[in-house]
């Protein structure tokens, strides 16, 4: 039992951080938010450096490392506010294909994404935005050897930019869950004007889309466990991203509190400000400890993985709530302006809270899992 990073992991974090600091300064994120277009970087680096391939088995051209390493890379992405297809491709699409797909499907759909050649997305939520219980807004029915998909999926991260979309649909057999890998061009997409413009979300519609059997991942009607497991990984990754973003908000606030002087003293010397900073710090520490536990639970396939994932998301959600509020407050009037970077981080963290189950939804699930 060991809750500390290995030397290799420390080195990994360091190298990811230095690449992202170089290639993904906040000014780049700001540019994206203001112009609305996504650059190739830092996704190209992610491909070249094998970040997307980290937790992918070697037989698929991956690096064959664990979920821990992937999680740490994600945390650094959150810290850098990195935009681009990394999160959806590496932590949503890939886990689903690896959990549900046959070896041939893994080769076909996962390998190119792991190599950084293609991108992926995962579509689960219904029109209400809820992801934790699959609704029937997207249905799949058998059509000869293939399937007909009809309906819609919503609030899909990178839904209108990813090359390949993994869709979760209701089927009329078995456990009711079918998973399908569909090229994005086959779908009608509608970009959402989102809170965080560097985190593109889209609604997807399939008007009676015919899909070949080779695109039905695994066995429709026996896919609920694979979906649940992939979502656990995705939830933990998103929590880690939120932790990274909140960590940066804490750092920005502490730096500001040290620099900014009022009444002839740095505001950080005032107890009221110090206590806010401490509360931000404890929130981040709690969220990170919980997310790291979940990261290990996924990596080691511990029986607590489902509970751990919900705990991580609940803790990260509570953390961003505290950290966002205090970060803007500590920055004062400046914090309320467009030109202050704090708003970018606040919006990213809040978006994370709302996706893949809110903190409150995960708490409800925890209460249920604990038999309350």
């Amino acid at each position, binding site marked *: 039992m060991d809750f500390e990073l290995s030397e290799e992991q420390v080195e990994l974090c360091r190298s990811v951080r230095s690449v992202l600091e170089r290639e993904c300064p906040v000014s780049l994120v700001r540019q994206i938010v203001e112009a609305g277009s996504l650059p190739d970087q830092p996704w190209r680096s992610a491909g070249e450096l094998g970040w997307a391939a980290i937790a992918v088995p070697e037989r698929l051209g991956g690096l064959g490392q664990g979920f821990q390493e992937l999680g740490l890379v994600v945390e650094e992405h959150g810290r850098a506010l990195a935009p681009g297809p990394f999160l959806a491709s590496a932590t949503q699409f890939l886990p689903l294909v690896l959990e549900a797909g046959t070896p041939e499907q893994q080769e076909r759909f996962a390998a190119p994404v792991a190599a950084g050649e293609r991108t992926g997305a995962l579509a689960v939520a219904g029109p209400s935005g809820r992801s934790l219980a699959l609704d029937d807004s997207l249905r799949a029915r058998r059509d000869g050897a293939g399937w007909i998909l009809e309906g819609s999926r919503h609030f899909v991260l990178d839904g209108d930019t990813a090359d390949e979309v993994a869709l979760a649909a209701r089927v009329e057999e078995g456990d009711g869950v079918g998973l399908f890998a569909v090229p994005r061009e086959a779908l009608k997409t509608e970009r959402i004007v989102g809170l965080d413009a560097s985190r593109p979300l889209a609604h997807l519609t399939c008007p009676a889309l015919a899909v070949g059997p080779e695109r039905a991942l695994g066995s429709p009607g026996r896919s609920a466990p694979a979906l649940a497991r992939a979502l656990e990984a995705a939830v933990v990754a998103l929590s880690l991203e939120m932790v990274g973003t909140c960590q940066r908000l804490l750092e920005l606030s502490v730096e500001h509190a040290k620099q900014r002087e009022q009444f002839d003293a740095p505001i950080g010397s005032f107890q009221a400000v*110090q206590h806010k*900073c401490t509360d931000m710090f404890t929130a981040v*520490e*709690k969220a990170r400890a919980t997310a790291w*536990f979940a990261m290990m639970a996924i990596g080691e396939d511990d029986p607590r993985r489902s509970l751990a994932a919900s*705990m991580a998301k609940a803790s990260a959600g509570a953390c961003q709530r505290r950290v966002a509020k205090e970060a803007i407050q500590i920055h004062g009037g400046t914090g309320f302006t467009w030109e202050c970077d704090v708003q970018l981080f606040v919006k990213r963290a809040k978006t994370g809270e709302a996706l893949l189950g809110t903190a409150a939804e995960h708490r409800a699930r925890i209460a249920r899992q604990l038999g*309350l």
Partner: protein
Amino acid sequence: MRLQYDAETEAFRRELRAWIAANQPDVEEMRRDPSTSSAHMPLWAREWQRRLFDAGWLVPGWPPALGGRNATSVQQLVYFEEMDQAVARRSYNPQGLSIILPSLRDFASPELQERFVLPTLRAEIAWCLGMSEPGAGSDLAGLSTRAELTDDHFVVRGQKVWTSGAHFSDWCFCFVRTDPKARKHRGISVLVIDMKTPGIRVRPMAELTDKDHADFNEVFFDDVRVPRENLVGELNDGWAMATGSLAHERGMLWIHLVTRLEGMLESVARVARRPDGRGGRIGDDARFRDGYAAFYVDVQALRFMGYRGFAKFARGQVSPEHSVLKLVGSELEQGLALLALEALGAEGLDVDFHSRSHYDEFAEYPWARQYLRSFGQTIAGGTSEIQRNIVAQRVLGLPRR
């Protein structure tokens, strides 16, 4: 990073569990003669600690000559986890074993160690810790109990307060001012004082929970003569022990806090199963469920933060986690007590059941009492405000005023 313990550690755990099962005190005896203070060691408690010591299970991280077994840090972690699951606590004079003893080992002269280390380990003497004073609470270094050195004796004059277990203690590990002219952190020394010395008066102070229950005391020193050889460490160098002694075993003390909180969570889950008077259960209420889950997550977060702090501690790094753990844990305890009490409504007002002893290991405390007790958690051992200052200044590097 790894969640699973290795096979060797699991073997250590099994050996300890088996030993505890075979050697723990008789539960009936514990009920008949409960410990009523942090320095009150009934016969069974002394015998239990002695058995632990003799078997090498009292301080497993220490060398065999001092009753240890050179346990590794992971083994010690497992040790504290297991001890917290046992019916009996490791010691019924926790400040003696966990704070004073390590300080004696680090700072006391060989003669003092000779006199006190083994008897303390064997539960032959009970200790209190003389720190806070009426004028020195959060500002501990402002203490003014004076010890004047005259030939071969110190003469001690002043007052301590919130001294846990003083009314049951044989000895006091006492912080005194020996140089009133020096800057306040510089003129402090530590004396071990025999509580039977003439001039010492102890007045127990009942807690707000119960007029008949007192663990802490006022201790008055009226020209108390203390032999010079009872000075611990160097003259005027006692402040290091105030910070050092509290840091002792902090690498592990959080385990007890987390275990207590997990026990509270289980109790609150029992509250959830009680009828809500509308044909359902208290636990059906969405707000209650949300609150419970939030506390559950935070308590687990505390455990994982403890593990992270421990990992640093085991690598010999300084870990700031302790202040954070104390701060978060005490506030969680208050929140959990409030959650249960408010969910129970008027039913929660009945405090007249189970044992009256605050140290009875078996009582399911009435929630109203837990609620009252929880107020002390954010005050004792450094208020939450002081903990927040410490984190802000020492961890985040914010400037002092």
